[in-house]
């Protein structure tokens, strides 16, 4: 690529995913500007020397979101756009959106105070799951088995103090096999899928779940693409569970990791991402 096109790679740290993206860009002759999220400042006027597209891979959701807002303001297309990060980065907003689009998702009740949280948990029924609205890797998630543990968990959460912990996102505990599904969507394509199995009810790869490639049948493909489209589309990892009534979408991740998925399936996910980002930048 010798026409001056440049891809901006915005990072906090360089994980195997970002290293794979750099290698995929090099292999395709795409020049990359590496942008460290801890070093950037963003004025209101459009600066010089901007990349043609920003691949926003900040591991901090907050930094990723504000960087996306700034670059979009400067007229640089961002993968994923700020609207997508804002929506998919917030599990509460995602649940409402999935429901609006008729996409099966676990029964969910939101409460804004500890008193209402107790009622929300009763409405969902036991066992229930309490999750932070923003967060990943299974962090600070709690399975609530009965009224006694509900009271203690709500009290502990309230004591954390931060405003985001004063909002309670309560979801039914889906009785699924000891595994869930991760489907990786790039644009309008499902590029790879895997099972994540664990004896822990949290099947995050970051928690050491074992993985296996999953076949992508028409139902799984359609549901994953609808879920990705519901949050605005782009590069997204859709997480699904096999519930008693069929597949349910429980998360759509807007800055997805893919080290395990690439190793498990042999798919060049970084290559798909780079080609998609270049396409977005050239639109």
């Amino acid at each position, binding site marked *: 690529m010798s026409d001056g096109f440049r891809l901006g790679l915005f*990072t*906090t*740290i*360089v*994980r195997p995913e*970002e*290293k794979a993206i*750099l290698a995929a860009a090099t292999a395709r002759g795409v020049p990359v500007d*590496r942008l*460290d999220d801890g070093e950037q400042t963003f004025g209101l006027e459009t600066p010089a020397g901007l990349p043609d597209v920003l691949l926003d891979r900040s*591991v*901090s*959701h*907050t930094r990723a979101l504000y960087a996306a807002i700034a670059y979009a303001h400067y007229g640089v297309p961002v993968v994923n756009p700020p609207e997508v990060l804002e929506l998919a980065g917030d599990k509460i907003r995602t649940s409402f959106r999935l429901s609006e689009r008729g996409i099966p998702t676990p029964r969910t009740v939101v409460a804004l105070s500890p008193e209402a949280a107790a009622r929300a948990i009763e409405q969902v029924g036991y066992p229930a799951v309490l999750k*932070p609205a*923003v*967060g*990943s*890797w299974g*962090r*600070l998630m709690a399975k609530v088995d009965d009224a006694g543990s509900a009271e203690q968990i709500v009290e502990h959460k309230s004591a954390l103090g*931060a405003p985001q912990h004063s909002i309670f996102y309560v979801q039914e505990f889906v009785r699924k096999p000891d595994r869930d599904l991760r489907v990786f969507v790039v644009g309008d394509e499902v590029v790879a899928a895997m099972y994540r199995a664990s004896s822990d009810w949290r099947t995050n790869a970051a928690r050491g779940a074992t993985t296996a490639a999953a076949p992508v049948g028409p139902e799984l493909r359609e549901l994953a693409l609808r879920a990705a489209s519901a949050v605005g589309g782009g590069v997204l*990892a859709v997480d699904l569970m096999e519930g008693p009534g069929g597949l349910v979408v429980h998360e759509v*991740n*807007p*800055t*997805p*990791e893919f080290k395990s998925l690439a190793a498990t399936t042999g798919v060049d996910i970084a290559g798909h991402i780079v080609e998609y980002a270049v396409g977005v930048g050239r639109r």
Partner: protein
Amino acid sequence: MTECPECAASVESHDKIVGEIFPCRECGTELEVNAVEPFGVQPAPHEAEDWGE
């Protein structure tokens, strides 16, 4: 080659790049590459509550 800032074990650069995160082979501390010429590392930033996917 440089030293782990935690345990002083020797740490080799191999093909690492600036910003890359990796664990020290001796003590397991997560390290971040802060320079390649000459090779240097520092303790990796701590995971924050909004870190993730």
